[in-house]
């Protein structure tokens, strides 16, 4: 294998950006500093909660200001090419020249705002939620570190720098899932998340190697320039590269077959579920596909796989969500399902729609999780007051909470309508855009009609399980207990305040990308246009228009409303027994409740055999049995026997044997060598 020397074409050196953008590293440095200070406090002054709060939330607000300023500058002076902020040379070896550099363009600016904006709200919420926890300082240091890595992920100008953030957020996710590490199930869940993600990261690594040797660069800008020249469209190479990349995305964004870690990740504190496992980190896979749209649009097969896996995951996870009782588990499967929508979008080539849904989902899912956090907070408080051992997260123990927590109820209901796709809430616009795009592609590639159908069915299920959640939690009779009921109350303002802001965003998020159908200007579409320009040429979208568009939209709305209605009526049709009194699940409900037994399957097919083989065959068998038993000790025994024989004949001096050995070996080697 050789490559032409022409590979050494120097990439046109981008000029260093000026203005606010050159300070973009501050957005990373601030949370990082917060991590260091809060980490030191966690070790030395864990009780200094006020300082921790001020620093923990303050650095996030600071990062948000930096992000907003950069965004404003980008709006004022839209750059033709991404702005690259060079920081230092990271790994220069031979041709390879990986620099630690950040890339500011329209896509990273959107992500920056989401991460720091939603991040700030969730940090604020955590001040209330975690206040009584003895690991308060540790919690904020991890949370700050997470944001720093997340910003490296979205700002990285090359795959390796992105990978620093990519694995870094994985680390923080691991630490925060297992935050209450004294419970083994929690640290198990953290470990599982890290390991499953590592399987995905393996894919990202391989994709990087293949890209490097075929394109000779790992910088996004340079890859985008060279990919159409070096990689044959639809060829095996680009298809393999993108499939390996997608393996990574499936790990990080919890898609089939690597979704299993996300539901377990709910073991972490609820703000973590909102920030990491709903709004930001889990969307990184979607972001990566959008970021490398110039590769995926070259590989129609991979794009179909992305869309297909997304559609199947959306449906599969939604069906599990139908039969969960833990309020956070419902939301977790809902997240897996909604991420499936995003992949359906970007796989269809509707990159903007995918990102749009990513943004609106960040709003309403963060709201749902924080609302659930409020509920759990209240439930926990109530059970704590009476020393009850009941499960504070089981919806069967709730009911009628709207009377005790009206704000939380109203806001969660709003978010439920948003995720179900009720117009004119944010989720309606973003979900509809994805489904329309899938349908549009179905005109030329019929398989997409199937994907669209799965998406629509999943939408019905979404409406159902979300309304079921609302009904079981907030409506009907309360099942918490006579005494406990007295202790149920609304959360403090530091918690409901962020909820309110997220409520406004969930309500009005659709304005970001209002379609022409209702007289909007598709702002996000135009904003991201430069980022996806190449892809939209290579893989043009055909959106349904006119009466067909109206028909699709009405269909989706009817499905959503029907799902909500059925979910509401069916849930409250019969009295709900508490978790203690609930009968065993039977039939298909049991299969759904037990999540299709996928965890059990993985455990029996992969985990147990691997540990067993390692212990009994590799270690006890080969290492101790064969190599040591027969090889080393066996030959030692043989030598001992020989030595005994020798001692009968000779003096038995070790030195003598060494000399004989050396001379003999020299003699043999010389004889052979001749």
């Amino acid at each position, binding site marked *: 294998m050789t490559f032409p020397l022409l590979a050494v074409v120097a990439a046109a050196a981008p000029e260093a950006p000026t203005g606010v953008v050159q300070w973009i590293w501050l957005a990373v440095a601030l949370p990082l500093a917060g991590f260091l200070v809060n980490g030191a406090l966690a070790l030395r002054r864990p009780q200094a909660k006020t300082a921790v709060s001020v620093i923990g939330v303050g650095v996030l607000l600071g990062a948000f200001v930096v992000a907003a300023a950069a965004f404003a500058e980008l709006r004022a002076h839209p750059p033709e090419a991404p702005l690259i902020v060079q920081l230092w040379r990271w790994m220069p070896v031979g041709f390879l020249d990986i620099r630690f550099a950040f890339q500011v363009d329209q896509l990273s600016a959107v992500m920056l705002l989401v991460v720091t904006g939603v991040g700030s709200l969730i940090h604020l919420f955590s001040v209330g939620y975690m206040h009584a926890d003895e690991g308060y300082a540790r919690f904020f240091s991890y949370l700050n570190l997470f944001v720093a890595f997340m910003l490296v992920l979205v700002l990285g100008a090359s795959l390796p720098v992105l990978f*620093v953030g990519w694995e870094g957020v994985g680390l923080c996710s691991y630490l925060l899932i297992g935050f209450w590490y004294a419970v083994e199930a929690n640290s198990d869940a953290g470990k599982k998340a890290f390991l499953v993600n590592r399987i995905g990261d393996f894919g990202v690594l391989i994709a990087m190697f293949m890209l490097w040797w075929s394109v000779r660069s790992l910088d996004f800008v340079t890859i985008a320039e060279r990919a159409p020249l070096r990689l044959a469209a639809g060829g095996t190479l680009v298809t393999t590269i993108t499939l390996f990349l997608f393996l990574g995305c499936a790990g990080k964004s919890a898609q089939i077959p690597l979704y299993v870690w996300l539901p377990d990740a709910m073991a972490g504190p609820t703000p973590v579920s909102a920030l990491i496992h709903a709004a930001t980190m889990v969307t990184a896979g979607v972001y990566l596909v959008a970021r490398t749209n110039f590769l995926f649009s070259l590989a129609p097969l991979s794009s179909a796989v992305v869309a297909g896996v997304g559609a199947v995951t959306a449906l599969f996870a939604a069906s599990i969500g139908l039969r969960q009782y833990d309020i956070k588990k419902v939301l977790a499967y809902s997240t897996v399902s909604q991420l499936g929508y995003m992949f359906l979008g970007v796989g269809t080539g509707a990159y903007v729609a995918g990102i749009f849904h990513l943004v609106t989902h960040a709003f309403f899912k963060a709201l749902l999780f924080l609302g659930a956090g409020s509920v759990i907070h209240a439930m926990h408080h109530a059970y704590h007051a009476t020393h009850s051992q009941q499960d504070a997260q089981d919806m069967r123990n709730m009911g009628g909470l709207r009377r005790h927590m009206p704000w939380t109820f109203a806001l969660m209901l709003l978010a439920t309508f948003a995720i179900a796709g009720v117009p004119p809430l944010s989720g309606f616009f973003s979900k509809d855009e994805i489904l329309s795009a899938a349908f549009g592609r179905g005109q030329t590639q019929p398989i997409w009609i199937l994907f669209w159908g799965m998406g629509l069915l999943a939408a019905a299920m979404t409406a159902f399980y979300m309304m079921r959640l609302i009904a079981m939690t907030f409506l009907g009779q309360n099942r918490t207990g006579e005494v406990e009921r007295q202790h149920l109350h609304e959360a403090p303002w530091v918690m409901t305040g962020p909820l309110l802001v997220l409520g406004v965003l969930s309500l009005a998020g659709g304005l970001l990308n209002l379609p022409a159908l209702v007289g909007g200007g598709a702002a996000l579409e135009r904003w991201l246009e430069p980022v996806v320009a190449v892809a939209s040429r290579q893989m043009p979208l055909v959106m349904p228009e006119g009466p067909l568009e109206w028909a699709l939209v009405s269909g989706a709305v009817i499905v959503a409303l029907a799902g909500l209605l059925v979910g509401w009526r069916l849930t409250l049709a019969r009295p709900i027994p508490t978790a203690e009194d609930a009968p065993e699940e039977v039939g298909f409900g049991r299969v759904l409740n037990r999540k299709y037994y996928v965890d059990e399957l993985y455990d029996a097919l992969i985990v147990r055999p691997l540990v067993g083989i*390692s212990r009994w065959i590799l270690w006890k068998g080969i290492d101790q049995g064969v190599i040591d038993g027969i090889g*080393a000790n066996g030959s030692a025994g043989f030598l001992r026997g020989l030595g005994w024989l020798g001692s009968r004949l000779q003096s038995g001096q070790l030195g003598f044997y060494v000399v004989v050995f050396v001379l003999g070996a020299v003699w043999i080697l010389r004889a052979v060598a001749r």
Partner: protein
Amino acid sequence: MAPWLASMGYDQWILHLLLILPLLGVIPVVLGSAAAARRTALVVTLAELLLSLGLWWAVDTRPGTLQLTASIPWIPAWGISYAVGIDGISLMMVLLTTLLMPLCVLGSWNSITSRERGYYALLLTLLTGVIGVFIATDLFLFYVFWEVMLIPMYFIIGIWGGKNRLYASIKFFVFTMAGSLLMLVAILVFAWTVAGGTGTLSFAYQHLLDNAAVAGRSAPWLFGAFALAFAVKVPVFPFHTWLPDAHVEAPTAGSVLLAGVLLKMGTYGFLRFAVPFFPGVAMSAWVTNLILVLALIGIVYGALVAMVQPDIKKLVAYSSVSHLGFVMLGIWAATVQSLTGAMMVMIGHGFSTGALFFLVGMLYERRHTREISAYGGIARVVPVFSLLFTVVALSSIGLPGLNGFVGEFLVLLGSFKTHPLAAGIAATGVIFAAAYLLWALQRIIFNRLDQRENESLTDLSVRELAVLLPLVAGILWMGLYPAPVLRRIEPAMMRFVQTVRGPIGYMNVALRAPERER
């Protein structure tokens, strides 16, 4: 070279001083009181470290050839001389050694309570031996230093080791002695063969390298003998079983040096001698395939076996087998990225595994057990220990931003060009590494604090922090800004590629981008 160093004539005396200083240090250690031995050893090793730091600026690594060379005839009749020199490869190994050594002395501060004088004297002798191995440019001298290093380690394990120390030290001795005797034979035969072809009997490295082609048909046998000696040292599967035993029984400092430095003498031997001498044999299809298969077995098998170890030290020992597999892969892939990466793994492993052994030792000093099941939940009582343990474990897992990643990434990226399948299999090692270390981490510092003995554990002392923090700083520095290290290694690796692949192959895999500023 910096003028202030040049003005001292630093380049004239430094290598010789590095060799002789530890030996001179043995005298006050032995003559002084037992209590003073550790202080004297610390002063000597710190002086050695400070002196060696100048090499960073004094050695011009850009040509990729040996620098600061000196040669004095030793036994002229047999063509043996005292000859030393240093290039980017040796520079890094020497600095790694001089850095680890004072930490080892500090780490042994309270744990070695008997025969201190003998212990520290052996440690200093070992230092001379190791430095000698890395800078000797005469093969006979190299062999002498190789043995000088071997014997102190044998005694350190055998005298200050754990319960099973006798078995372990003899196993260590037999394995490595068999290897090194084989190497002696190979050196002698090689020198004589070359002498037969050129008419000059000399053990000088450059002479042998230039005329290695004379070996002709005996090259496979000579390579085999060298390779076997080095493979035992690395250790390459299936010669690795001495390692877990030696590690478990060795005192902490012994384990640190064993993993941090001694194993690398094997890979160093491949890089410096075995492969460049006989590139035709080493890079032949079947030798390459054999080594790659063994390296991959090492990576995956080492990781899987590490996963099920009940003893922390054994776990770390098997993880070394896995890590060193990456180095072997990097060497045989023979691209400049894979080789530079291999070197980074060697350095990085010295830091992270060294630190892991120190950490395990600190636990052992408190609880006198290394069973993983004896711990659990200790993050609550020893937060600083747990923090450092986590950072070091993450570096060993290869988390980007820490040093382990740089080496593994470069090895895999570089290998992907020449051996995509092997690189792909090796990359699964990153999954298994996470499996064994995170599982261990969970069972040691997380979960419930359910054993009473652990409730009264004390967190790290200032002395222990002084041992660990330099290593953690290095882990961060080489993860975030490895460029200065890479820059110093790269030229020597370019030369290696040129030697083993010839000019055409060199163009294909190693050419430097011309526009890149240094």
